[in-house]
Structure formats: C-alpha cells, structure tokens
C-alpha cells in the first residue's frame, strides 16, 4: 500500500483535490434559490458527516477484529480512526448550527438526527477518554473495542433517522428516493467534495497510523533496553 500509493502522492492528490473543491463550491455550483449563499456550507457539512459515520464503521470492524484476533494493528487502527473521526465529527457539529441559524432561525434542536450525531461525537470523546485514562493498555484496548462495537448502533440509527422519522433536519438529497434530488452542478460539487474529504480522512489516518507505528517501535526498543539492563 505504502509503495503503491506513497503518502506524498496521497498528500499531493488531496491538496489538488481541495483546490478543485474550493473552486467548485464557490464558483461552479449555483446559488440555492431559497437559502442563498449560506447553503454552500452543505458541501463541507455533508462530506464531513459521511466521513464521521464511515470512521465509526472502521472502528467497529477493527474492534471486532481486535477482540477476535488480538492483533495490535487492528487496535492501532481503531484508535487512530477515533482521533481523526473526532475531528470530522466536530466539524459536522460546528458547521450544522452555522447553517441552521440562517436557514431555520435556530442554532440547534433536539431532533433525532441532530441528537444522534451529538451522541456520535460523545462516543468519539468517550472512546478517546477511555484510551487516555486507563493505565493498563490491554484493558484499555478491550474496553475501547466494546465501546466501538456498541457505539456502532448509534451510527446505524443516525444514518436511518431522517428516513424513519420526520425531522427538522432535511431529508436525504442523494439516495433518498424519487422526491430527492439535486441540480447536476450541485451534485457534481457534492460528489467531488465527498471524494476529497474521504481522501483527506485517509491521509490524516495514515499520518496518525505512522505515529502509532513509531510509538510501538519505541516501546519495543525500550523493552529490549530494559531487559538488557536487568540482565547486566
């Protein structure tokens, strides 16, 4: 993976993608008729939300792998994803109210989608706090894996919330049924932004995983050193 798709190429592609996305958001996509310019928050809010949900899916899968096989990489992957996913989820929770205020007249309402997204953010926080506060790394990894598996229920309900219930949050505009739909230029901008946010997510994840690898190497060397000292 690293040789086929080196991180510098990944970073360059992401940077180029970000430039294209900014161009499309502000110059290519048409202005929405009722909300006007503020609707352009949509192109960063929706992809960030998608990545936050995908992040927890990765945590869920890695947690299952960790609990069944106890591989260190699956634990490191879950931990790294939690940190990066938390950043994206925070962006969702900040950009949402900034769009809601001019569109709905309120910053926040406790409807199903908003509440479940807030719960997702709390799950990310809980995961990271557990990881940092538990002294025993093995115990922390197991407990976090349990949080990662149970927390995924929230992701499923969050994804379906606007399909199951009438909410203040808009209904899905992509894959939402016959009444949903977007202007083709808006859809193209959303899809490009979606792809670039996914690239950015994986770039940050790779950087975070590299950090975890270095930390592991350091603790292994220290372990060997300590063993040598005790032998002497």
């Amino acid at each position, binding site marked *: 993976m690293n040789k086929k798709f080196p991180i510098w190429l990944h970073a360059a592609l992401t940077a180029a993608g970000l430039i294209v996305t900014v161009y499309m958001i502000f110059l290519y996509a048409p202005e929405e008729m009722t909300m006007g310019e503020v609707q352009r*928050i949509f192109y960063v809010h929706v992809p960030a939300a998608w990545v936050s949900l995908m992040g927890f899916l990765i945590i869920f899968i890695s947690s299952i792998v960790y609990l069944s096989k106890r591989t260190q990489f699956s634990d490191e992957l879950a931990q790294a994803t939690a940190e990066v996913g938390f950043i994206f989820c925070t962006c969702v929770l900040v950009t949402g109210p900034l769009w809601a205020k001019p569109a709905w007249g309120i910053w926040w309402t406790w409807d199903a989608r908003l509440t479940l997204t807030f719960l997702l953010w709390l799950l990310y926080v809980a995961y990271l706090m557990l990881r940092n506060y538990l002294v025993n790394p093995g115990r922390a990894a197991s407990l976090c894996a349990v949080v990662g598996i149970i927390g995924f229920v929230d992701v499923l309900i969050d994804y379906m919330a606007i399909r199951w219930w009438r909410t203040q949050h808009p209904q899905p505009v992509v894959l939402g049924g016959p009444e949903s739909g977007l202007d083709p230029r808006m859809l193209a901008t959303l899809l490009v932004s979606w792809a670039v946010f996914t690239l950015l997510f994986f770039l940050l994840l790779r950087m975070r995983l590299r950090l975890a690898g270095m930390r592991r190497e350091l603790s292994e060397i220290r372990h060997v050193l300590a063993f040598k000292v005790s032998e002497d």
Partner: protein
Amino acid sequence: MVNKYLFVAYSFVWVVFMLYAWNLSRRQDSLKKELDEVKSKVAESSPTPASGKSGS
C-alpha cells in the same frame, strides 16, 4: 460580501484540519527524535560491532 455564517464555517473547518495536521507532524518529529536517541543508545550499549547492519 461573503455571508458571515459561511465564512465562519469554512474558516473553522480549514483551521481545524490545518492545526490537526500540524499537530500530527509535530508529534511525529518529537517521536522520531526520541526514537533516534534510543537507537543510538542501543548502538552504544551493544558490545559487538554492528558489522554493516544499520539497525533502522
């Protein structure tokens, strides 16, 4: 004139991503430094010559 909500939303997102990427590279640099120090300690403490092995 750019809408203030739009401006704040985009500014927040880009600043957060840049700060996080900067934080990651800073943590990586400090870990690399620590790793190099520990590796040099290991090289110093090993009694036999490395015989061509770099150890990295």
